[in-house]
């Protein structure tokens, strides 16, 4: 199971949003995708999901071009976890997660016992089974993020593409979400997530990819890619890092000019 993007280019009007992007995602990996605002992270995510068609390059899912897959077949292999979920109606957690069964069950028929098991399993896996009958809009940000992840797990997909799963979560929920993502990768899932937090990318990922103005400028082991020097150049602010007990911390140095 693999997702491979080669030579991806995308244009928005005159502006090249992505230009020759190569990216690979395999089972057991957690890939953190970093980029400043407007670097093209979301566009890349949408192309990987098959929601946008690139002007050049190809995305292959299990060695077959994404365009050759049926959409429902893609949805059984690859799930999208959005940053938030606009919920104009008071759906319960169970109902939100049940939508994840659409790729398996289709829209036409009722959910089967298998579907109900898959939903219950996803809720258990993310420790939110007690919330099953609660209304989604009444949950906290951290709980909502778990519900959306549970919906993705209910799809039975093995590739998870997550759009800023840590944004908007309090510190405790961020740490728990990082641990959840790592646990999923240990179970064989392939996870790609976009993030604005270099320290989380170092701690929680097996690989880090830096996207700058539509190009991949670094792709490798997080500790080698994400350090004070690269981050100072990447974000244009003066900072360095310190390593304490295997953990990397970034320090903002307001008195120094960025290199």
């Amino acid at each position, binding site marked *: 199971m693999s997702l491979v993007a080669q030579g991806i280019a995308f244009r928005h009007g005159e502006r090249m949003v992505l230009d020759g992007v190569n990216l690979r995602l395999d089972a057991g990996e957690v890939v953190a995708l970093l980029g400043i605002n407007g670097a093209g992270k979301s566009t890349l995510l949408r192309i990987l999901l098959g929601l946008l068609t690139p002007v050049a390059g190809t995305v292959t899912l299990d060695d077959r071009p994404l365009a050759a897959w049926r959409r429902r077949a893609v949805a059984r292999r690859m799930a999208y976890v959005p940053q938030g*979920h606009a919920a*104009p*109606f008071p759906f*319960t957690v169970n*109902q939100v997660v049940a939508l994840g069964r*659409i790729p398996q069950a289709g829209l036409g028929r009722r959910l089967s016992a298998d579907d109900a098991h898959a939903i219950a399993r996803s809720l258990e896996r993310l420790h939110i089974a007690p919330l099953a009958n609660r209304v989604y809009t009444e949950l906290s940000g951290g709980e909502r993020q778990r519900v959306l992840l549970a919906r993705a797990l209910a799809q039975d997909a093995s590739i998870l593409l997550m759009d800023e799963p840590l944004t908007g979560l309090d510190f405790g929920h961020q740490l728990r979400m990082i641990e959840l993502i790592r646990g999923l990768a240990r179970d064989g899932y392939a996870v790609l997530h976009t993030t604005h937090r270099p320290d989380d990318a170092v701690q929680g990922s097996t690989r880090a990819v830096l996207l700058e103005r539509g190009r991949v400028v670094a792709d490798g082991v997080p500790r080698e890619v994400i350090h004070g020097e690269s981050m100072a150049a990447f974000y244009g602010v003066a900072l360095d890092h310190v390593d304490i007990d295997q953990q990397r911390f970034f320090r903002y140095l307001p008195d120094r000019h960025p290199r």
Partner: protein
Amino acid sequence: MTSIRSPARGAGRTVALFSGAALVLVLAIGMALCVGRFPLSPAAVWHAFADTSTLAGTVVLDARLPRVLAAVLIGAALSTAGATFQAVFRNPLLSPDLLGVLSGAAFGAAAGIVLGVNPVVIQLLAFAMGLAAVGLGLFIAHAVGSPGVLGLVLGGVISSALFASALSLVKYMADPLSQLPTIVYWLLGSLAQVGWTDLQRFGVALLAGVALLCASGRILDALTLADDEARSLGIPVTQVRLITIVLATLVSAMTVSVAGMIGWIGLLVPHVARQLMGAGNARVLPMSALMGAIVLVAADTFARTVSAGEIPLGVVTELFGALAFLLVLRRLRRSGL
């Protein structure tokens, strides 16, 4: 324990609510057949079905029954169409008129009245123009390259405005003594002229439309997702949305062509159904159909019995709708939605 017991309790509650609503509908129909300018006891209504040759038989079977059945069908149709539009456009406070079906139908009927064609053709014109208005709205949305929810809403606004101005023009051209009052009365909405022939023309189609909408609950749940989310679940959003809109529009256009403009029901009833059944559309749609039927049978009975003359049904639903909306808004504010 609660997680094991509560779904069963939920299912029991659902059955109880549906049974209760069905019972209320039967009682409302029974009452509507009894009351009127020629009051009948329940026993007399029962006998009227057995012996159709009596005066009571004529009153019940020829005058009241087709009208009550039309109220059932139209109430159910407006409510399910409203619930559908609310899901498709991800807004719990929308009416089926969002894309201009009422403006189009009103124009069609007014044009028919001015042209002096027979009532059947007026109905067909109203139906066709209702569809044309929505078609134009969809076309505008696609022509400007924005087939998403916002594009459709804007297309509907433009189309509604065009047909509203065309209606004004027709009213301006109409004979102020004969045609204009007819147009105004038509626009107020009424079931006074509905008979068996109308039911023959539209009854089966309306029933089929309501049944199809009721069966598409899970599709509607999926359409409440953002487009990217829905597509990532393998749903061909644009096509599914279009089919759903067309079906709900057909149903709404039929109601307008039979009964004119009957406001508020399509907006409010699904909302109350959602309060009772939760957000899942597989339950909201059938409950909306039942409640819409109850409300319209009750409103029509009120319209034809409250005074010696008859108040147009549209006026009754507008009046009670506005008051009910006040209550809904209070609840909405409290629930923070």
